[in-house]
């Protein structure tokens, strides 16, 4: 897959406080890149540098193979949704979209069609001729997404696009971003890890201005390390026997009881087979045996610790 954006060895300090520290990652065409990290980790700062709103101290950002510091005509090619989007209150969404279209030099008729389509897509169809003044944060967020997609950009950057949305709205916007990747690449930052897992192809975890994990969603959740197997037994007797036995074998690195389940931790993937065999030999009444998938949250906790 071809990359649309490559960030290389980026660093940025605000008054001696290093905020971004030798950060590198890339974003591929038609993929969604999820950017996660705690408050103040440097997500917004990185995004602003990609938009050329902030000047990096060192490092370079290549957009479509060209250094953004040297090219001036990227404006229509990157769409941006700020973390707290501010619009003009006296406009209606439709008028605002036309205003944006005029700045991006889109022809009126084309822009109108496009705006109608996008406003429908983000669910503002009914409110498209109401003044923005009365809009809720979620509605503004939706308008922000529509606006970012207006000029058919090759990359859209969304800073916490789901932070103000209700559960249904969140799902809609996530589906929207997922759909959008057919025409553009997406970078989005969030604190909600399940969102990332749901729609992202690539994930970067940022901590203190450094990327501490980067890869595809599968890669990250598959990563090395221990595997947990959850065995559920109904009889307390069986459960206790399993617990005692498990403590004795070398196969199990750790064992614990959670509700009615025994959770046994083995060293790696390969040992899982042996464990299954071992359980079979014990002859307990077992309801189910299941290998536990690692969630992104587990990975995140491991990394951030």
């Amino acid at each position, binding site marked *: 897959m071809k990359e649309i954006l490559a960030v290389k060895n980026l660093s940025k300090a605000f008054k001696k406080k290093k905020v971004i520290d030798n950060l590198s990652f890339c974003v591929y065409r038609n993929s969604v890149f999820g950017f996660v990290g705690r408050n103040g980790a440097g997500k917004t700062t990185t995004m602003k540098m990609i938009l050329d*709103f902030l*000047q990096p101290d060192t490092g370079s950002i290549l957009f479509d193979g060209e250094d953004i510091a040297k090219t001036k005509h990227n*404006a*229509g090619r*990157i769409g941006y949704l700020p973390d707290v989007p*501010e619009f003009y209150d006296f*406009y209606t969404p439709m008028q605002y979209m036309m205003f944006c279209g005029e700045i991006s030099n889109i022809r009126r008729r084309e822009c109108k069609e496009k705006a109608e389509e996008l406003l429908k897509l983000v669910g503002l169809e009914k409110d498209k001729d109401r003044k923005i003044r009365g809009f809720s944060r979620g509605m503004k967020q939706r308008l922000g997404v529509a606006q970012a997609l207006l*000029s058919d950009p090759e990359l859209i950057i969304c800073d916490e696009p789901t932070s103000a949305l209700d559960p249904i709205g969140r799902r809609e916007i996530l589906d929207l971003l997922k759909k959008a990747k057919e025409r553009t690449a997406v970078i989005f930052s969030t604190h909600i890890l399940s969102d990332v897992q749901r729609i992202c192809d690539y994930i970067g975890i940022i901590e203190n201005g450094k990327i501490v994990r980067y890869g595809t969603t599968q890669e990250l959740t598959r990563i090395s390390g221990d595997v947990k197997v959850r065995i559920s037994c109904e009889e307390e007797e069986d459960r206790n026997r399993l617990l005692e036995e498990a403590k004795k074998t070398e196969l199990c690195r750790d064992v614990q009881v959670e509700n009615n389940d025994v959770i046994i931790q083995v060293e790696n993937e390969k040992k899982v087979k042996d464990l299954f065999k071992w359980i079979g030999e014990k002859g307990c009444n077992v309801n189910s045996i299941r290998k536990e998938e690692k969630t992104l949250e587990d990975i995140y906790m491991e990394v951030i610790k």
Partner: protein
Amino acid sequence: MTGFFAYLKKELWEQLMTMKAVIICILFFLLGIISPIGAKYAPEVISRLTKDSITIQMADPTYLDAFAQFFKNLSQLGVIIFVIVFGNVLSQELTKGSLIIPMSKGLSMKAVIHAKFIALVFYWTAALAVSFLSCAIYTRILFSEINLEGVAILLLGSWIFGVFLISLIIFSNILCRGGYISLLLIAGCVGVLFLLNLLPDVRDYLPLKLVGVDVASALINQDYSFSKSGAVTCMLIVAFLLISHICAADKRKFCN
């Protein structure tokens, strides 16, 4: 200058929709009709108040008094109203952050400055026209005699003074990048002008001269000249705009 026309349209539309332009026009209309009324009835009121103690000899007021009153009101009340209403046109947007999305689409800060300047000059011109027309019509009604000869140049002086204030507004808004400090900066600059005005040698060169002539004698004797102060004011306007322009070259300063 990407997005200049789109932004200019937005700017003109915004002042209308947020009622600022309407309020300015109404206030300037009132300012226009107050002047002849004041000129006509003030002497009567004064003489009635002081009837018992002293008798003051006063000439009957004429249209000249109405115009004198008008230009005085314009240069004081009018200008203050205008600066209060429009003094933070740009800083307000910078603090709110509403320029970020347009800028991410390529709108340049220079385009913003030019559009704001032109929109404000447009509304200043409209306000001036409204107030002068209402003043002239009321003067015609209250004083049967009226002569508009020589008024045009006085109006031009006031207009240029307004444009000077607009460039000062833009300049201070760009320099202070938001907040009420920019209003203080405007007040400070005007204060300096008033201080300089105390020096007889420089008085003739100051923008204040444009709105500080003795209207009655100016209209009758034509004994005034705007050439020095006008030239200086125009130079100041250009200088303010130029500095704003230079400050605006780096858009990064304005989108964080």
